[in-house]
């Protein structure tokens, strides 16, 4: 069975076999009713009940496929229905709102506005499925090779049961792109599972096996359970091999999903803890306001977004990348202000810094609350971060999490670069190794403390930026990270970034593996208990700094 690598949007939508039969029935009458007319379509749509509306859309699609109707008109009517701009009641005037103008839905000519405007027929869940199929199919009819063709084919794959056969056949013919035609053939295969002839069924089963998803597996399993369907040995064999093939790929997909989720959660933990690894790990300052520095990074990103929205809307989609320097600078500035005013006095009293930074975190949360209010900030999801793609079987990679992982790697590289390749990094490590000795050899610890605190805070700001697509941004978002990031730094071993990275990967992965087994609450509890026990027996963490203590 050749496995055709194909990028396809999620086909996992659930239509049971039973529904399949019902839908096929539904599509049938449209064909029989030859007397297709635009007026009939609009009249059915205005009845505002799912049966007639579905029939109308079915008839419309079949007519467009047969060339008896223009795709553009169909698209306009369906878009109006979806946008609540088709104003009509079962009886009385029928109008289509086109901006400020009211038009006759059938002819498109301007119409006079009646005294009381009827309201738009409501599109419930069942009808919405038909609206989505119609919108996709009509767009494909208009431009088979259009930019959004792949997404539109995906809609047809999801709702394959209600795509009228004639329309599907027409779409297959007119589809220039080979990979899209293959996917449309898969849609037809899903429909023709019920075909009378055995070899038609076998070929359909084979095509379906090419797309190993849990939904298809369930479909085939249901067919295998029907004695009449699987009577023919060839069909039987095809079903068994197809199901075995899908099972193997499903397991591969599941492993991929667990690894990806683990990596994504680990990247979040790592970014939250990295700033702390510098501030607490290297400088020994217990900073309870680290979460708030992350929050400040996120708010800075939001301000950049708002500024771009006002000044340069064209660049709005790139606000995340443009905000990188701003988020770093904002958090670093706050961090340095903290250090200069408060932390500077407390380097020899670690437990007092703990209380001081707690007070500062309380101050920052409430300051932001007073300035920006308590509601969640609204972030535009940039186009390149919206949605995701299916890698294999049901394993799905979402762009915002992939961005977080990539960003975490970037931040790690930046941190390592600064620490090991720049004079500042050398001085920071000297000061943390032996503050007094560093002072003796002429390192101005005042300046180095300020700058290294700034770097640590800046890294937290970048973490804030990377987390905006995933987490809610509000004044109290910082509290999510405090307990976890301290444990990551302590578990990883104070004083080195590699330890923090390994600890974050470990905690992230274990958390994700346990979550499906015992639920999210138990996962968090088990991971925390494991860390507490680990620290008991190895207080210095995974990578302790070797040598005399």
């Amino acid at each position: 069975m050749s496995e055709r690598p194909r990028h396809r949007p999620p086909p996992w939508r659930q239509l049971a076999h039973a529904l399949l039969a019902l839908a096929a029935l539904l599509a049938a009458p449209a064909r029989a009713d030859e007397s297709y007319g635009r007026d009939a379509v609009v009249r059915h749509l205005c009845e505002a009940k799912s049966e007639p509306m579905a029939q109308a859309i079915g008839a419309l699609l079949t007519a467009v496929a047969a060339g008896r109707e223009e795709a553009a008109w169909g698209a306009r009517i369906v878009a109006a229905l979806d946008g609540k701009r088709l104003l009509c009641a079962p009886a009385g005037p029928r109008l289509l709102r086109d901006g400020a103008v009211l038009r006759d839905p059938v002819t498109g000519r301007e119409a006079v506005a009646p005294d009381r405007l009827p309201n738009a027929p409501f599109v419930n869940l069942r009808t919405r499925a038909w609206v989505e199929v119609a919108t996709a199919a009509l767009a494909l009819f208009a431009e088979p090779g259009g930019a959004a063709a792949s997404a539109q084919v995906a809609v047809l794959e999801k709702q394959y049961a209600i795509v009228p056969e004639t329309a599907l056949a027409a779409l297959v013919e007119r589809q220039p792109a080979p990979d899209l035609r293959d996917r449309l053939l898969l849609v037809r295969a899903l429909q023709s599972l019920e075909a009378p002839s055995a070899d038609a069924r076998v070929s359909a089963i084979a095509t379906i096996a090419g797309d190993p998803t849990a939904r298809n597996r369930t479909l085939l399993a249901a067919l295998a359970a029907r004695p009449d369907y699987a009577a023919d040995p060839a069909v039987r064999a095809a079903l068994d091999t197809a199901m075995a093939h899908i099972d193997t790929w499903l397991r591969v997909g599941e492993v991929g999903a667990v690894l990806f989720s683990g990596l994504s959660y680990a990247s979040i933990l790592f970014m939250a803890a990295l700033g702390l690894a510098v501030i607490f790990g290297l400088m020994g300052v217990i900073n309870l306001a680290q979460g708030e520095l992350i929050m400040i990074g996120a708010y800075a990103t939001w301000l950049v977004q708002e500024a771009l929205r006002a000044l340069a809307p064209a660049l709005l989609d790139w606000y995340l990348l443009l905000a990188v320097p701003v988020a770093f600078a904002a958090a670093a500035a706050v961090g340095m202000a903290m250090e200069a005013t408060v932390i500077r006095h407390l380097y020899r009293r670690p437990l007092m810094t703990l209380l001081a930074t707690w007070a500062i975190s309380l101050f920052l949360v409430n300051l932001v609350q007073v300035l920006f209010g308590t509601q969640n900030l609204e972030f535009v999801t940039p186009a390149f971060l919206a949605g995701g793609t299916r890698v294999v079987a049901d394993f799905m990679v979402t762009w915002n999490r992939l961005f977080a992982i990539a960003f975490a790697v970037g931040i790690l590289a930046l941190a390592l670069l600064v620490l090991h390749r720049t004079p500042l990094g050398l001085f920071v490590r000297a000061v943390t190794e032996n503050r007094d000795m560093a002072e003796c050899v002429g390192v101005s610890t005042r300046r180095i403390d300020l700058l290294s605190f700034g770097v640590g805070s800046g890294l937290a700001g970048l973490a804030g930026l990377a987390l905006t697509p995933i987490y809610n941004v509000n004044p109290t978002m910082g509290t999510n990270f405090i307990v976890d990031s301290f444990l990551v730094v302590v578990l990883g071993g104070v004083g080195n970034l590699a330890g923090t990275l390994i600890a974050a990967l470990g905690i992230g992965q274990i958390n994700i593996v346990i979550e499906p087994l015992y639920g999210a609450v138990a996962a968090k509890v088990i991971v925390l208990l494991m860390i507490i026990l680990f620290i008991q027996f190895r207080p210095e963490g995974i990578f302790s700094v070797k040598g005399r203590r």
Partner: protein
Amino acid sequence: MMRITSAIGRRTLLKTAAAVGGALSMPAIIRSAAAAEPVKIGCLFSSSGTMANIEGRLSHVCRMAAQEINAKGGVLGRPVEVTVTDPASDWPLYAQLGRQLLLQEKVASLFGCWTSVSRKSVLPVVEQNNGLLFYPLHFEGEENSKNVVYLNSPPASSVLPALEYLMSDDGGKAKRFYMLGSDYVWPRTINKICKGYWTSKGFKETSWREQYVPFGFSNFQTIVNDIRKFASEPGGQPIIVLTVVGDSIPAFFKEIISQGIRATDIPVLGLDVLEADLEGLDTAPMVGHLNCWAYLQNASSPHNDRFKAAWKSYVDTNRLPFRNNVVIDPMVSTYDGVHLWAAACQKAGTTDTDAVRAAFAGLTFDCPSGYKIGMSAENTYVSRGVFIGSVNDQQAFDILWQSDGAPKPVPFSPYA
């Protein structure tokens, strides 16, 4: 039971001088120079802490309702005065401030609480001191204290109608249910009632799955993967019964949007999803998901238009930090509560708790939701209409279905 004596002499604060916490006079009260002695009512809504964003608005609704009542001559000829406190989303403070309002301020009634835990912490205070708490939120039911007026609907008359719709043909003939909730009493009770209801409809254990997440949980990646797997299993159309609360709501929707799940694939019935929760989200990909409340902003009724206009002008004149065009169910329930209390006092001829409670039976009020809500002698529940809302792309809900009357509230569900 300790009687609240209203002898003016002892009530003045300064006399009870004590080293700790003695002088608790409330500068927030402006002693209005009204002719008659004002009737005081107390507000227990947090304007700081995690609940501030949505709960903070309710104190202002109380004040607005009091203004309306005072404009029509107040209660028994006496102006209504609202004492506002801030329990700061911290449950011991709810109890403490409640005790202070009842014992020190001698308020005639309390309007307060949002989460079940804040209500549970004020419950002993009102029961020990025979006070009256008007609770504006829909909740898990299973409670019927004579000192609490339950302004919103228990699960039987809010969740079950929504489930019936989703299991009907128009709703997509749901046959399998993924229950996802925050790990505390309200979600667990709702899910228990749903399971009882489904069993009575002949569903078996295998057709649902239950998953709980800690408070403030926001990493739904693994759970949405699990939901997608659940959705691909045989047995019919799956839906998600969502009872996560607070910040988990937008976090959950962000994840299902990014994993490409639409309402036509797996509809989400969000039992605690408010317009305010959608503020931070682009709701275009969420069109079609459902919620159920006793009031929706788009409810079409003259009372609703008047209420929305009154709130808009109140927000603008007082320059409040809220959007003046967003109105949510608990605000309307609080508004109803103040008016019901005033009507009860008027009917009872006194503001004394026991007399007011007796006056509740048969009271009705034209709620902005368009329904005529009322109370019966059986319990202190208010019968409310039911709306099922469907998310539209303007961060609000269209009315998908609404009950044709205000069903009788059932405090203790038969399925619990």
